[in-house]
């Protein structure tokens, strides 16, 4: 099968330290050609450092980095950034204040030895693809945040690299702009066929843009898998809370056949589908808001209600702790009222630590 392209990126047991401070530890992952990997983690988890190591801005203390099948860094040697096949979109845009948008996008092509005239015409084309062709003569100070980041994306695309690194590209944009930019990013990435590593702290973005998600905590990969997997089957409570709204209940499971189990919490019991490390006995269960519903065997008091338009979010106080619940339609109860509820499905994370 010599026709299979090598992975766009491969990290083998990567370790990175700033002085004595370890930043990344035992990070191993692989990104296939054309694949988008989201790196999801809270601030300080090492997302930017991971991208910097891949780009060549920081040298690893141990491990190997391969880009397009070529070894670019290990603990002894490091290929400089300009000779790695990567494009980079910076969190704070990093547009050069002394260059116009057109000059900025032409820059990577000029460095590759493309003539001035052709670089300009291709830069104009890229600015057009990002919808900012009319701003070609402006400098960064004359551009809004969204416009700046579009220029930043065009610059990264101009590199025509096999791997695109995106460091929270929407972190400093307003919510409506984020959606638009993400859509354009996905379109352009699909057009060029480049693989991408997309660092973000926003779980919504990670689940939406990625083929796979790597969850990063304190410099280690806690879990890596498809969006559905990290959302529905997180390896532990920490990942569960990072990958979406999560209620964790302590319940007694009575094992039944076929993946269905009877769940008993104070006040009642229900027989549902429970996946995960479901042994008999006390277990910690993840319940996503849409996995619970109003009406059922359990009692609760409504603590807060938030009407979101298409659906309503309820915060419930139950005998086994706080539960978040999402239901279609307008609110059916007000804060302080007593309601009943049920669990439709759950993910068991074992008996806890």
């Amino acid at each position: 099968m010599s026709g299979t392209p090598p992975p766009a990126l491969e990290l083998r047991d990567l370790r990175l330290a700033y002085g004595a401070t370890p930043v990344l530890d035992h990070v191993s992952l692989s990104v296939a050609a054309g694949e988008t990997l989201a790196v999801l983690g809270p601030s300080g988890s090492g997302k930017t450092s991971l991208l910097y190591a891949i780009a060549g801005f920081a040298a690893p203390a141990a491990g190997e980095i391969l880009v397009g099948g070529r070894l670019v860094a290990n603990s002894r040697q490091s290929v400089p950034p300009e000779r790695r096949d990567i494009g980079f979109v910076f969190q704070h845009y990093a547009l050069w204040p002394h260059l116009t948008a057109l000059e900025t996008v032409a820059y990577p092509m000029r460095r590759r030895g493309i003539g001035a005239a052709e670089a300009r015409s291709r830069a104009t084309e890229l600015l057009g693809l990002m919808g900012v062709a009319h701003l070609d003569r402006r400098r960064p100070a004359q551009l809004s945040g969204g416009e700046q980041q579009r220029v930043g994306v065009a610059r990264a695309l101009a590199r025509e690299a096999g791997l695109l690194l995106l460091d929270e590209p929407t972190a400093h944009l307003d919510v409506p702009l984020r959606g638009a930019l993400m859509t354009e990013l996905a379109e352009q990435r699909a057009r060029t066929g480049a693989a991408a590593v997309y660092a973000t702290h926003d779980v919504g973005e990670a689940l939406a843009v990625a083929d796979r998600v790597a969850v990063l905590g304190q410099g280690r990969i806690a879990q890596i898998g498809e969006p559905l997997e990290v959302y529905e089957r997180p390896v532990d409570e920490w990942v569960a809370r990072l990958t979406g709204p999560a209620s964790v209940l302590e319940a007694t499971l009575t094992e039944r056949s076929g993946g269905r189990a009877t769940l008993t919490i104070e006040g009642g019991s229900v027989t549902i589908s429970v996946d995960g490390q479901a042994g008999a006995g006390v277990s910690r269960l993840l319940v996503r808001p849409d996995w619970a519903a109003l009406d059922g065997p359990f009692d609760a008091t409504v603590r807060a209600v938030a009407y979101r338009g298409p659906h309503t979010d309820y915060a419930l106080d139950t005998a086994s702790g706080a539960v978040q619940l999402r239901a279609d339609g307008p609110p059916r109860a007000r804060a302080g009222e007593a309601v009943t509820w049920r669990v439709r499905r759950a993910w068991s994370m074992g008996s806890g630590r």
Partner: protein
Amino acid sequence: MLSGALVALVGWPLARLLAEGLGSGPAALAAAVGQGGALAIANSAWTSLLVTVLAVLLGLGGALLTTRWSFPGRRVLAIGVLAPLLVPDFVSAISWTRAYGPAGLSQRILGVELPGLYGPAGIVLVLGAGAVPLAYLVTLAGLRVRAEPDLERAARASGASAWEAFTSVTLPLLWPVLGAAGALVFVISMNAFGVPAVLGRPAGFTTMTTRIYQDLAFSASDAAFLRVIGLAAVLLVVAVSMVALADRLAPDAVARASTGPGPAAARRPAPIWMPILAWAFVVTTVAIPMLALLLTAITRGVGLDPVPPNLTLANFGRVLDRHAVGALANTLILASMASLGSVALAGLALAATRGRWRVRVGSLVTVSFALPGSVLAIAVPLAYGASLRDTLAIIAIAYLAKLWALGHRPLAAVLDRLPPDLTRAARVHGADWWTALRTVTLPVLVPALAAAALLVFVFALHEVTISILLYGPSTATLAVVVLNLQQLGDPTLTAALAVLLTLLVAGIGIVLGLVGRRGSWIGAS
């Protein structure tokens, strides 16, 4: 009140100076400046140009080294580069003569001396080395504000080599900063008196400031006085236009780059020759000269080798007995007056103005710092000389006019960053205007007040350009005594007193470095 102080300290003296100069007509003024004056102007200009190039190149190199490269002892070097700030410039010139001049340390040990130390080459070297910290600090600030590491990373990720990233991104962003640093260094070099007085006069090399000194001190003719006025006018125009240029180019003037800080570790490991070269600079320009000066100060006589049997501390006792106790008292009194006065004036100016007016007063005060000491030393007596001649008061007024800006800048910087909501929060929670000032604003300002007072104090301690033109029989300052001793040709006593003065200046300078932010050293930038 405020504008009154500005007018009285700066405006009226300068007006008197201009009236004096223009009173006899521009043609007469030009004639009076004549060939001697023109030669001094040319000498000042070309040496200052070389000083500027030297200091800006070295300052840029130092700033890049300490921000872009990593090597052992980086933080220590970053402080070492600032060491020349702790040595008064004329002391530095004297110390170079003891290290590299005839009968200096290098000649004793290696049998070689620095050719041309007395003369323009020596002036350029000593002034250039002394101006490196200023160029370094301005460039450092510029690098911080303008050349975010992410901008270079973006260039590297776009396919630029390290050198291409430097020439296509870093350098274009830094040009205005380097221009501002150069303009400031040029002004300081043009205004410098101590170094050309020590190194130029023995070689017969005259600059504008030493010409002014010679004409005022040793000539009584009206023509000579007119020449002084003419030269002062030229200095004034150069200083004001250069500082205006620097202010236009300076980092604050430009919209900030839209980038935030990335994580640390942007530094690459430096090849070993880089820190070695930097340390060699610190050692040859500061450490060895100061060591030579110290050895001279503790050796019994000029001709003797600095070996243990010849060492003594008696020189310090002799120099303090004979010359310096009165001068030390004068110096401390003047420095205290200048320090308290300028901080009080700065405080008043800041309290009385807000918004746009604060900015305007701020830039006026800044320009006054660029006023050459020689110009003020001529203008202030023209305005107030009749009653105050030969008193400490006349020197104090000139000091206040000159150093006010030094106190103003650190205070203004803190006040500008003080969120108005702090005071509003105090008021809304029950404090009246005075209580809010006392319990919120002042405590926040205390470090800045202390830094401002110390900064003015330390500058006044080693000021010599003004005091050497204004001192009378009983009002000589320590710096004046050092310079006069040097000209009388007594290296041992000169060295002893210079060491004492440097200890005083460096001691307070180090305290200042601990108290204040390093940024407040950036003089008139």
